[in-house]
């Protein structure tokens, strides 16, 4: 697939942008803080309905319009996919301040092909893989980062997963509130039964889906990693499900939709039963996909804990390139690759490996401060844009 056209209004430092995108590699050059990353952020937002960088969408609305009565930002993308064209539209509106919400509520309106939709309906319309300089944090950072990574990746290719995740989060919130309530005041613990069962149901579905995705990612990542390290290290991805699910291979071929296979459900339910006392004492749910871990292990060493910075970077690059293959395999469409100034983080050999891997993509958008980090012959095959203060102009070569 590829992005044909992007239109931005009051998005970050883009007051107005109307831009056709070519079906090839675009090299976006500019100094820092001119809007390079914001451009990738906009495309990523249309694909995932969230920013890769910040938690609160309100910062996406340009500062320049903050004083207007109803400040808004709009992102519109036209996508060409093997299944046809799609028109994606997101509008963020900051409503006036109210006594109970002095900052003003942020309303989000989403349209798909002109029809008002929910965020979940936008997912999967546009698939992207984003490469960031800080990708090695995925390996070295907190477990929550890895879980979030799996969630965002899976939500892009599997709408059912996204639905299950919403259900799970709701159950988790209800169960945690109930645990706290039971700890603080006299109330009937029999209320837990229903939430335990729901936690087991949606939790088993989510952990299992992640396990299968990790197994697919691992197959590709191990290969790529082997090539990157000249075969000196063997990378393994280990997903640890806190619900103690049985072996992946044991699953029946076609479980019911929205229902885990009975063996999985039973295993999850007993794992929850085992921790019930602990949960009641602590007032939080201590098992479930929200506590699962994903480990990157090379030659028996957990890279997150003991890997060198270089090893972590290599593993992260292998993971991202594996993600491209994973997405293409799941959707039958090549995702759009977004690279945010990553060349400077990679040594020569890894940089060249990455550029060679881009050759298979339909559309790539690369930002850089310095065009010199790319080989001449690579640059020649790209379309070059220059970004300055939220304006893009074409470079003539």
């Amino acid at each position, binding site marked *: 697939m590829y992005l044909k056209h992007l239109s931005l209004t009051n998005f970050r430092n883009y007051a107005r942008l109307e831009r056709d995108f070519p079906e090839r590699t675009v090299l976006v050059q500019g100094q820092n803080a001119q809007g390079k990353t914001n451009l990738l952020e906009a495309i990523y937002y249309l694909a995932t309905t969230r920013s890769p960088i910040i938690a609160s969408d309100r910062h996406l609305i340009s500062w320049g319009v903050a004083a207007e009565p109803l400040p808004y930002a709009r992102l519109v993308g036209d996508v060409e996919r093997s299944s046809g064209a799609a028109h994606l539209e997101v509008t963020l509106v900051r409503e006036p301040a109210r006594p109970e919400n002095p900052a003003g509520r942020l309303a989000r309106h989403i349209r798909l092909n002109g029809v008002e939709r929910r965020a979940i309906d936008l997912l999967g319309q546009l698939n992207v893989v984003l490469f960031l300089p800080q990708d090695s944090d995925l390996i070295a950072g907190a477990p929550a980062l890895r879980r979030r990574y799996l969630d965002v990746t899976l939500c892009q290719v599997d709408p059912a997963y996204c639905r299950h995740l919403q259900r799970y989060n709701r159950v988790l*919130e209800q169960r945690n509130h109930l645990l706290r*309530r039971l700890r603080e005041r006299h109330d009937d613990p029999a209320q837990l039964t229903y939430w335990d069962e729901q936690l087991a149901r949606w939790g088993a579905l989510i952990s299992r889906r992640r396990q299968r995705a990790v197994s697919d990612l691992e197959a590709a990542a191990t290969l790529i990693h082997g090539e990157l390290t000249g075969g000196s290290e063997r990378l393994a991805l280990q997903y640890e499900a806190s619900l103690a699910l049985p072996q992946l291979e044991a699953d029946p071929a076609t479980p019911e939709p929205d229902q885990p296979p009975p063996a999985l459900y039973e295993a999850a339910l007993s794992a929850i039963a085992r921790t019930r006392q602990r949960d009641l004492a602590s007032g939080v749910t201590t098992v479930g996909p929200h506590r699962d871990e994903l480990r990157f292990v090379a030659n028996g060493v957990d890279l997150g804990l003991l890997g060198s910075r270089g090893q972590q970077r290599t593993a992260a690059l292998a993971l991202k390139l594996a993600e491209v293959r994973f997405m293409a395999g799941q959707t039958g469409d090549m995702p759009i690759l977004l690279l945010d100034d990553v060349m400077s983080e990679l040594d020569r050999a890894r940089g060249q490996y990455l550029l060679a891997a881009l050759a298979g993509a339909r559309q790539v958008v690369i930002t850089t401060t310095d065009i010199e980090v790319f080989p001449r012959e690579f640059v020649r095959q790209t379309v070059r844009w220059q970004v300055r203060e939220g304006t893009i102009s074409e470079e003539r070569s």
Partner: protein
Amino acid sequence: MSLTPGPVGRLIEELSRLPGIGPKTASRLTFYMLRAPEAQVIALADAIRGLRAGTVLCSTCFNIAEHDPCPVCADQERDRGLICVVEEPLDVLAIERTRRFRGVYHVLHGALSPVDGIGPDELKMRELVERVRSGGVREVLLATNPTMEGDATAMYLARQLAPTGIRVTRLAMGLPVGGDLEYADEVTLGEALEGRRDV
């Protein structure tokens, strides 16, 4: 300095507290009332004021009514052996519209939702169990919403009622999951009533 006179701002604020009404709608309604005939506006104000004073909870089914007992509980033709348990008074109206239910009701006034601080004590649950225990009941039909909270409530009630040995049923599937009974169309709701199954 604000350009909006105090009383106007106050009404906009009060209206926008209501469910389904945003600041825009609240402003539109407020300015409509400023221009509407005075009699109409006073009638509205009286209706709001009379809302609490003129209604009671039925002491049997806890539906909102003008008198206690409510018309359904007072109706000798209704089947007292069949109790339909719903979350809200609006659900009673929705089921009555189908004209396919001849039993009586029990309004819980909500569903179990720990996030909102609602447990069994915040709902008319103990009253239901006592009502069933006091005799004459053949079946309890749990018609809570097809949401997680509605299901949690139904399941919890089913366990509470199990020791009584009385038949407990749940509305059949076919209702949109996550929806409210109140928005289900009459045919769908009617079918859900007929196709109820044992819990």
